Structure formats: C-alpha cells, structure tokens
C-alpha cells in the first residue's frame, strides 16, 4: 500500500514586501517538521522547484494592484482547497492602499519616465475582495506563532486559535505599563487586533495598528480621546491610514476625523 500522500502546500505572492513569507522561512526549527507533514508544491521564495497545483493549502501574501494579479488570484483559488491570506496587504490592501486615497493617474504621470509601461489598478485591495477566503491571518508582518497555529490547525482539521480581541490584552498579560494612560502616547491598541504580543507598547511606543481592527472596535471613542490628549486631527488621520488604512473601520475613522471641522486630510 502506498504511503498516504501529504497535503500539498502553495505559497503565493501578490503586491507585498515578502515579509510575511519570510516569517514562514523564519520558522527555522519548526520548518523541518512542517516540510515533513506537507509537500511544498509551490513556494518560490524558498525553492525554485515548482510542482504546480492543485493545493490543499494555499497561503497568499500581498494585495491585488494590477489587472494581471486580479486574474491570477482566481486561478489560485480554483486550484486550492483551503485558501488562507497572510498579512495586512492580503487582508486590507496594505500600506500600498494609500493609493486608494490619492490620484493614482497623477502619480503614474509624475513618477515614471514611461508611464505607458506601468499597468496598474487605481486601488490596492485585499484578496477577499476578489475571491472567497477561508481564513485571514492578520499582521504586518504576521506573527510566527500564529502562522504555526494556523498550519497545525489546518493539518489536524480544526479551527485555529487566533483571538480577534484587542492588543490591550496582550499588553496587560505581559505586564506592560499602558503608554496611553501613563505617558499620554497615542496608541491604537484598544481598537487593534491582538497577535503581535503587544510589541510596540513594550518598547514605549503606541500601537500602530499592524494587525488591523479588532472584532468590535470603537473608533469614534478612541478618536475622541486621542484628540482630547492633544493629537492634531491631520496627525490622527495619518495614524489610521497606515498598514491597515484601507480596513473599513480604520478607513471610516480617518474619514470622520478628516471630515470634521479642523480635520484636513493630512
């Protein structure tokens, strides 16, 4: 009897910095057990051996920013049993979604010597805006432990334990002093999803919102508080418009602040 075949893994890149794929490569000691349990059928960042589909598990990094990619994601979806997006780009469009708030045509004309060579869409969008996604792993970049949890969960056929609660829980669990309350440092932790282990507050910075909105964020209340402690409205707008600026909750909050008297677009 032939040995049961291992599930086939594909890792794909769209518009992104490769940081999330690197998180997978960074798994070092866990990488061998993973390679034991899955067949790596397509992972160009790691190996030039490309075996092709179909895939039992596809990990997709990056956002859709070109007409060609808009087509490619449908082909990958059609070949994949389970499709998991990894990172802020794939979830909400990433930092490159700043174009969604600007005039891309103008950029193209001004920045490039031969704008006619550049084929691009007016927006950067997450994968789920194009095809059904089975699970979105957040983060800029994703967290290694969470990635391993998603892969292990997939291999044992259960739901991954990836909490969608706020960053504040991780802050308090590790005993970090709240930078917002104790230092008056603007922090997006209360509206941002956990996953990073509350890295920035542990180093005296406010949370930048890398993991996108938590499951029940209250943006108007946090905006009110951040303005109250002295943040200027244009600065607050820019604060929301970073790695996950195109996530609906953050996008709406930035628009609210920008639209209010004295807001400006920053």
């Amino acid at each position: 009897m032939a040995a049961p075949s291992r599930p086939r893994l594909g890792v794909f890149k769209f518009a992104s910095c490769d940081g999330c794929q690197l998180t997978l490569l960074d798994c070092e000691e866990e990488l061998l057990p993973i390679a034991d349990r899955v067949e790596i059928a397509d992972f160009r960042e790691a190996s030039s051996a490309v075996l092709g589909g179909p895939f039992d598990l596809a990990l997709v990094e990056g956002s859709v920013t070109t007409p060609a990619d808009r087509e490619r994601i449908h082909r990958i979806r059609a070949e994949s049993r389970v499709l998991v997006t990894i990172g802020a780009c794939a979830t909400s469009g990433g930092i490159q979604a700043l174009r969604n708030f600007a005039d891309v045509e103008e950029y193209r004309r001004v920045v490039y010597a031969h704008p006619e060579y550049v084929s691009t869409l007016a927006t950067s969008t997450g994968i789920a805006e194009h095809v059904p996604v089975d699970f979105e792993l957040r983060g800029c970049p994703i967290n290694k432990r969470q990635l391993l949890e998603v892969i292990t969960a997939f291999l044992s056929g259960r739901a991954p334990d990836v909490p969608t609660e706020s960053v504040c829980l991780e802050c308090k669990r590790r005993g970090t002093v709240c930078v917002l309350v104790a230092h008056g440092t603007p922090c997006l932790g209360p509206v941002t999803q956990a996953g990073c282990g509350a890295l920035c507050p542990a180093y005296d910075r406010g949370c930048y919102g890398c993991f996108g909105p938590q499951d029940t964020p209250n943006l108007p209340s946090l905006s009110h508080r951040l303005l109250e402690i002295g943040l200027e409205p244009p600065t607050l707008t820019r604060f929301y418009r970073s790695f996950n600026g195109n996530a609906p909750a953050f996008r709406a909050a930035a628009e609210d602040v920008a639209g209010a008297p004295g807001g400006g677009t920053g």
Partner: protein
Amino acid sequence: MDGAERRVGERYLLERREFPAFLAALSASGYRVVGPTLRDGAIVYGEIRTESDLPIGWTDRQEAGTYRVVPRGDGALFGYAVGPHSWKKYLFPSRERLWSARAKEGSAGGFEVEPEPAGADPPLAFLGVRACELAAIAIQDRAFTMANDVAYLRRRERILRVAVQCGVAGGTCFCVSMGTGPAAAGGFDLALTELIAPEHHRFLIEVGSPAGAKVLTGVPLAAAPADSAREAEEVVARTARSMGRSMRVEGIRDLLVQNPEHPRWNDVARRCLACTNCTMACPTCFCQTSEEVPELAGGRVERWRRWDSCFTTGFSELHGTAIRKSHLGRYRQWMTHKLATWYDQFGSSGCVGCGRCITWCPVGIDLTVEVEAIRSSPGVRPSEPSPP
C-alpha cells in the same frame, strides 16, 4: 531587644536606617521578595533585591484615564497608591501551563495526562500589600477555592503578606466606600505603617501571624510606645479623609439588577472601547480561557490558560456565536457582576475600591460615576429594548 522573640499582635518600631535589615531578614527566611518598583513611568510590582529597588521619594497622580509618577519632597518608601499591577500576577499568572498529554503508543490509542509538577521556586514575600489588595486576595481565594484550583491554591499557601498601611490615597481610590481600607485590620503576616516626621523616619510594624513573627527575629526593633500607635492611626485616618472617589453602595445589588434597560448603559457603551483594560487591571477579576498547544509533529499537546475578559467577543461564544455582541451588553455584564450579582455568588462585592479600572481605562470610564448616574434616575426605561 535584638534576637528576642516577637509576638503575634504586638507592635514594634523599626528605624528607617534599619530597613535593609528587615529586607535581609525576609531573604534570610527563604522568601523571594516582590514589591513596588518604578518602571516605565509607573509603580509596578517586581523583584526587590535592595531597598533602592523601591520607588523611594516617588508618588503618583491618578485620574480617570491618566496616571503619572511625580517626585514627592521626602524620602518615603511607600508614599504612593496602587499602580497598574496587582498581586494576581503572581497568584494567577497571565499565562500558565496546567497539564500536558501524550498520545499512547500502540494500537489501543488514547492518551496519557502528565500533570504539571509543583514548581520548586522559593516562596514569595509580597512587600507592600495594601488593605484593598488584602481584600482582593481574599476575594480571589474564595473564587479559586470554590473551583478547587490546584495551581492557584498551591502558590497561595506559600505567600507571606507584608502589608503597608496607606499613607496617601490615590485620585481614583474609594476603599472607604467599599469598607476595605485604608487600614488593613487583618489578613496579613506583618503590617507596616510608615511614620515620617521632620526629625524621624520610622516604621511601626504589627505582627499578624507566627510566620511574620519569625521573620522579625533578629531584626533590630524597639518596643512601640503608645504615641507611635496613635501616630500610625492618624496616618490612615488622614488617608481615609482624602479618598479620590466615593461610591454609595446601599442597595446597589437591587439597583443594578433592576435596571438592565437604563439608558445610561447606552451612554457608557458609546464610550467603552471593549479593550479589556479594566478587567485585566482589576485585582479580583479571575476570568480565563484555555488553549491547547499541540506539537507540530503531533503526539503531544499542552493545556495552557490565559487571562480572558468579559469584554471580548470570544468570551461569550457559545456554539460558535457570541451572545454578548454589543459593548452595552459587555459593560453591563461586567459592572452588574462586579457590584451586584457577586454578592449572590460569593457573599461580597467583587469590588474593593482600588480604582485601577478607572485609572487604566484609556477613555476614563469611571464606575463610581456610572453607578451614580443610574442611582440618580432609577427605573427609567428607554423606548427600545437594549441589544444583547
């Protein structure tokens, strides 16, 4: 009096310059000392190796949603109120492995549970436990005892409680209203009152248990004259008069239980971030969730628990859907449990009036204000039923 035996119920005087000898006696008795220390702009609990680890000459300014440390003109060792940490971080760690299990070899299948071995860490001396915190520990003792929580109870048995009578009240303190402070009347092994006068800096030490008496053997102490006991009483009386907050608790159980539809819940829900800081900082909140951490290669799994909160969506998930989806439902659940139904469950309030949830709420939601708002117009009902 050196080397003399110390007696439970007695009071002694320790000169400020002999404080290192007291710390040394704690270590010499086998305790690892943990207590207040200044870190990242706040007074938190951590390792105390020498007296310079204490926030000497510092105090705190606390308001709803704001905390700052500031120097105070004297060299007080304990001249501040409670900070963001509480002793629960030692008794009920934020993340802890409970047991592991290994799949059995062979065709029969099944698995074998490996219980978590008792740690070999030295017992802890909690230095600087405040009256409200003694009350909070007693509340958690009740909850974890009812649950027969082996991990908690095992640690709890090994704690020496060195209380400090509060010399200042924080801006968000209301222990007087809750009947938990500022004087620690019992439940400690030793209790210190810091006495600072222009010509004198001393500690009055009250012995609360044989374990406390044992520690003091060999510490250079003097018998406490009656006027120093009066001086110590005046310290806590002054603190009691300067509480930052108060809460009227008469009939609070019925007030909250009878007002689940009060419009004030809508108002607080608009401000609440559902961030969980109030519950994480609260010294009595004990909610937790468990996680399975499987080995990637299969064959072995670990069961961990971590702090959880009634403010998360996941907390109220039953059969895959959250039953408390709204911020209103969560805040109401938390406050009603803490201040009202806790009496039914545990025979006391769940709140000791430490003020942490007020200070450490990023948007400064203050439960004393919320209670007062409901009290000032009880029985008011909105036209629409509230969401879950």
